[in-house]
C-alpha cells in the first residue's frame, strides 16, 4: 500500500542532529583538557568511541536492527564521550572499555536500545566501575603536573604504575579528607587556600573544565537542544543545600561556588540530567528531577563515601521518573481550572 501520512512537512530535525549538537557542545571541555593534559584525552575518547561503536554494532546485529540507521544516530558516541570525560583521565584503557561496553550492552541494549533505557547509560558505567574498581576510579591526576605524552600513554596501558603527580584525589576528595583529618579544627578556608590544588573556585584547572561544560551547555540551551528546567533546577538544588550549610557553618562547608565548579556538577547539569530518555518529561517533573538530583549529589559528595555524587543521584532519580511523571502531568488546554 502506498502509505503516506500527514503532516507532509517536517522540520529539519533528527536524532542524529541532536546527538551531533551534544557532541559539539562537549568540544570546549575537550579543548580545555587538551590544553591542560595534552593529547592523552583524545586517546581516552578514541578508545571509548571505538568500544561504543563496536558494542553498538554487535548489539544491533543481534536484535536485527538496521545498522546504518542506528549506528549513525550518534547516541552511542555521546554515551562514549560522556563516559570518557566522566572517568578519571588516564584511567586504564580496559576500564574505559569495560565501562563503555557495560553502558552500551547492558544499560542500553538489554533494556531495548535507543529510547528504552530507564537509566542513564553513562552513569551506569560510572557507578559500576566505581563500585567494582574504587581505587582506579579515584586515581585522578592533578592537572598541573608535567609529564610527557609517552608517560601518559604508559600509565594508561599499564606500563607505568602511576606518576608521582597522580596524588589520587580530586579537589573534592582532598577537601573531604582534609576536613576529616582536621576533626573540626581545620577550616575550609585554610584548606582551600592551597591554590595549587584548589585554584580559585573549584580546583586548579578543573574549574576551567567546568566552565567549558557550562559554555557548551549554554550553547545547547540556546540551540534549544536542552531546556532550562533540568540544568537550572539541578544547579539550584546544589546551590540551595550547599548554600544553606555554608551560611550555617562556613568553616566546615565549602561555598556553593566551589561546589558548582568542582567535580561533575557542570557536566551533570548540562549533559547528564538533561538526558531525555531516562529523565522526567513534564515541566514540573523536570524541576523536581533536577532539584532532587542536585540535592542528593551534594549529600553524597559531602557526607557519603564517594568522591562525587552525580552518578548515584541521577540513577536514583531515574528510578523515580515514572512516579514523578505520573504525578506531574500538566493540565491540558481548556482544563486548567479543573481538578
Amino acid at each position, binding site marked *: 500500500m502506498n*502509505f503516506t*501520512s500527514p503532516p507532509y512537512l517536517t522540520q529539519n530535525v533528527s536524532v542524529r542532529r541532536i546527538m551531533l549538537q551534544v557532541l559539539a557542545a562537549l568540544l570546549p571541555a575537550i579543548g580545555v583538557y587538551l590544553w591542560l593534559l595534552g593529547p592523552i584525552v583524545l586517546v581516552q575518547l578514541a578508545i571509548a568511541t571505538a568500544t561504543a561503536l563496536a558494542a553498538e554494532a554487535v548489539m544491533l546485529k543481534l536484535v536485527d*536492527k*538496521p545498522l546504518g*540507521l542506528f549506528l549513525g544516530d550518534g547516541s552511542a558516541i555521546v554515551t562514549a564521550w560522556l563516559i570518557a570525560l566522566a572517568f578519571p583521565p588516564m584511567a586504564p584503557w580496559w576500564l574505559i572499555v569495560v565501562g563503555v561496553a557495560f553502558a552500551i550492552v547492558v544499560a542500553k541494549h538489554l533494556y531495548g536500545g535507543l529510547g528504552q533505557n530507564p537509566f542513564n547509560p553513562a552513569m551506569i558505567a560510572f557507578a559500576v566501575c566505581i563500585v567494582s574498581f574504587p581505587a582506579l576510579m579515584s586515581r585522578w591526576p592533578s592537572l598541573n603536573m608535567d609529564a610527557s605524552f609517552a608517560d601518559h600513554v604508559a600509565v594508561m596501558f599499564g606500563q607505568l604504575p602511576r606518576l608521582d603527580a597522580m596524588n589520587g584525589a580530586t579537589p573534592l576528595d582532598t577537601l573531604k579528607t582534609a576536613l576529616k583529618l582536621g576533626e573540626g579544627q581545620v577550616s575550609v578556608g585554610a584548606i582551600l587556600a592551597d591554590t595549587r590544588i584548589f585554584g580559585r573556585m573549584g580546583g586548579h584547572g578543573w574549574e576551567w573544565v567546568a566552565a567549558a561544560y557550562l559554555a557548551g551547555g549554554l550553547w545547547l540551551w540556546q540551540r534549544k537542544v536542552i531546556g532550562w528546567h533540568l540544568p537550572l533546577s539541578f544547579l539550584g538544588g546544589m546551590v540551595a543545600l550547599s548554600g544553606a550549610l555554608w551560611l550555617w557553618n562556613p568553616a566546615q562547608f565549602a561555598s556553593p561556588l566551589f561546589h558548582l565548579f568542582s567535580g561533575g556538577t557542570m557536566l551533570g547539569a548540562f549533559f547528564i540530567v538533561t538526558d531525555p530518555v531516562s529523565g522526567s518529561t513534564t515541566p514540573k517533573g523536570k524541576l523536581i528531577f533536577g532539584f532532587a538530583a542536585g540535592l542528593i549529589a551534594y549529600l553524597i559528595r559531602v557526607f557519603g563515601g564517594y568522591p562525587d555524587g552525580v552518578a548515584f543521584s541521577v540513577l536514583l532519580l531515574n528510578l523515580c521518573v515514572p512516579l514523578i511523571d505520573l504525578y506531574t502531568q500538566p493540565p491540558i488546554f481548556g482544563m486548567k481550572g479543573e481538578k
Partner: protein
Amino acid sequence: MITAILIMALGAVILGAALGYASVKFKVQGNPLVEKIDAILPQTQCGQCGYPGCKPYAEAIAEGEADINRCPPGGMEGVRKLADLLGREVKPLDAEEKPKQVAIIDEQLCIGCTLCVQACPVDAIVGAAKQMHTVVASLCTGCELCVKPCPVECIHMERIVENIDTWKWKYPVFEIKRVA
C-alpha cells in the same frame, strides 16, 4: 503469658468483627466475575462454545468448567482479554477465526416457515408464518444459527465489508529494514 494470650485473643476478636462487618457491608449480589466475563464475550449467542449463549459460557468459565479459547467470534483478542481477566494462560483459539458476518435471506426462496425466526437468539429476523422473512442486519450477530434450520437453504452468511463510516485508520507501519 496471660497478657500475650489476651492480646492475641483481642486481636482475633477485632479482626473477626471487622471481617464480619465487611462481609455484610460489602456483600456482592450474584457473581461479578460472570458479569465481567460476559462483558468480554461478543454476545453473538452463537453457541459455538458448546453452551447455549454467551452468559452460560461465561458462567461455565467462571466455574472453571470451560476453557477460555472456545469463542471463535471473540477471536484471539477475546482470548487474550479473558486470560488477562482471569490470570490464565493465553491459548490458541479452539476454532478458526472468522471475519464478522451477517445473515442474508434470499427472499425469492423463503417460504415463510418461521423456523429461522425461532432459531435466532437475538430476535433479529422478522416475518410471520407464510410471509417472507428478512434479517434486520443491524441486529444480526452473525451467529449462523438460522442457516441450518432453514428447510429450503435460503439463508447465507455474508462478510461485513468496511464502509466509509466504519473505516479505521491503520496502525502506522514502516519498513524499517529497507533503509539499512
